[in-house]
């Protein structure tokens, strides 16, 4: 556990030193939202329609930004043979997985916390169930990152990894996106936490399933 914390800290430290990934993910998801906001321009005053469209837009922007980060998550370790170094120094390879997952999750949630206020501004929202939204975001992100980190490790040695990762990732995370988008939609249309209990339960179940499966198969994904 401490090993994985160290790996996460190392990742975050090198990330916040350059802010390379953070900035590009942030700008990318902002641009996605702005483009949608422009294309929905004359619908913005009809809150009924926007309330149905917006959750999807929000999650699309997070998903796409996330794939950017995930594709670098393990590929960055290839330089100078860092991945081999990591495999040599930690006793348990699973701690690499947990560490990577922690750092990616923190990065994603940082981006989400910056994007959400901008999103509310662009789409004219006032959110009552903001803490409910936070729970959905965290659960959705954990599920997304736990699949994504595994696939990032899986594709790291494949030549076409930048193309392959989104293709593999998107169908697998639909079980997570589906309840997350539904729940976000309910919260935007004035619901509170009790209304999205069903979705939260489903998200938790899938987080656990994907996390456990990823734990079990991770060492096979990075062995060579």
């Amino acid at each position, binding site marked *: 556990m401490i090993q994985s914390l160290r790996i996460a800290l190392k990742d975050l430290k090198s990330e916040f030193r350059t802010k390379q990934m953070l900035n590009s993910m942030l700008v990318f998801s902002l641009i996605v939202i702005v483009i949608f906001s422009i294309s929905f321009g004359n619908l913005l005053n009809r809150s009924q329609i926007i309330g149905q469209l917006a959750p999807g837009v929000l999650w699309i922007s997070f998903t796409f930004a996330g794939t950017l980060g995930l594709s670098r998550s393990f590929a960055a370790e290839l330089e100078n043979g860092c991945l081999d170094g990591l495999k040599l120094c930690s006793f348990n390879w699973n701690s690499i997985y947990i560490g990577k997952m922690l750092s990616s999750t923190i990065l994603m949630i940082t981006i989400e916390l910056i994007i959400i206020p901008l999103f509310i501004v662009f789409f004219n929202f006032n959110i009552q169930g903001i803490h409910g939204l936070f729970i959905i975001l965290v659960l959705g992100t954990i599920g997304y990152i736990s699949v994504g980190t595994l696939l990032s490790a*899986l594709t790291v040695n494949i030549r076409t990894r930048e193309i392959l990762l989104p293709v593999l990732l998107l*169908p*697998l995370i639909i079980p997570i996106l589906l309840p997350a988008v539904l729940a976000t939609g309910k919260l935007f249309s004035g619901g509170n936490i009790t209304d999205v209990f069903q979705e939260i339960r489903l998200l938790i179940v899938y987080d656990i*399933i994907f996390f456990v499966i990823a734990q079990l198969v991770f060492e096979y*994904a990075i062995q*060579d």
Partner: protein
Amino acid sequence: MLSSESKKVNLLAVLTTIAIIVATGMIFFYLPQMTGGSSEVLGESFKIFYIHLPIAFTSYLAFFIVFVAGIMYLRSSNKKWDILARSSAEVGIGFAFLVIATGSIWAKAVWGWYWIWEPRLTTSLVLLLVYLAYFMVRQSIDEPETRARLSSIFGIVGFAAVPLSFLSVRLWRSVHPLMFGESIYGGSGGGLEGPSLILTLLVNFIAFFMLFATLFVYKIQNEELKEQVNDLKQSME
């Protein structure tokens, strides 16, 4: 030895053909007129259900085989399991496509649209997409052992999408009809009454499982031959 084995396979193929013909014949000539839950007469279109359900179950079975073979491959690194997994996935994709095709044909007749976006339909589409991605993994790796290892992992993770596909109709309010069991919203399955309906469904199940088995066996033989050819090619170099 090979000839007796291929004789068995040919026999299986013949039996499957007969079973499919009998099963299809039963749907069209043996079934009495159907009535729905509120005893309205269901149209001819409902008959597709007897094909749709067995195909859906067979595709789940195929992907379950991919899942198990994936686990066994990771445990043993035996090439045989990889052949099993990819054969099953390939046949399974065909069945998964047929589920959507038969479902859409029925939906056009009853709902008026081929496709609507609702959980059950979406998840069966996702199922298909996951296994298309499975072949993307296979295609993009040249080295056979890495390919087998990574695609096994993907097959295992991808299988997590299957239970969702199966359960979603019970978790969400859905317009997809529910035949057996109860949904959590209190609406129970229509159920099938009368021995002739159950018998038809059963015969169809057997026929489609046999069809799967036949295709599966042929595919495995095919892949084994491919391996042999590859080995021979390598020994030539």
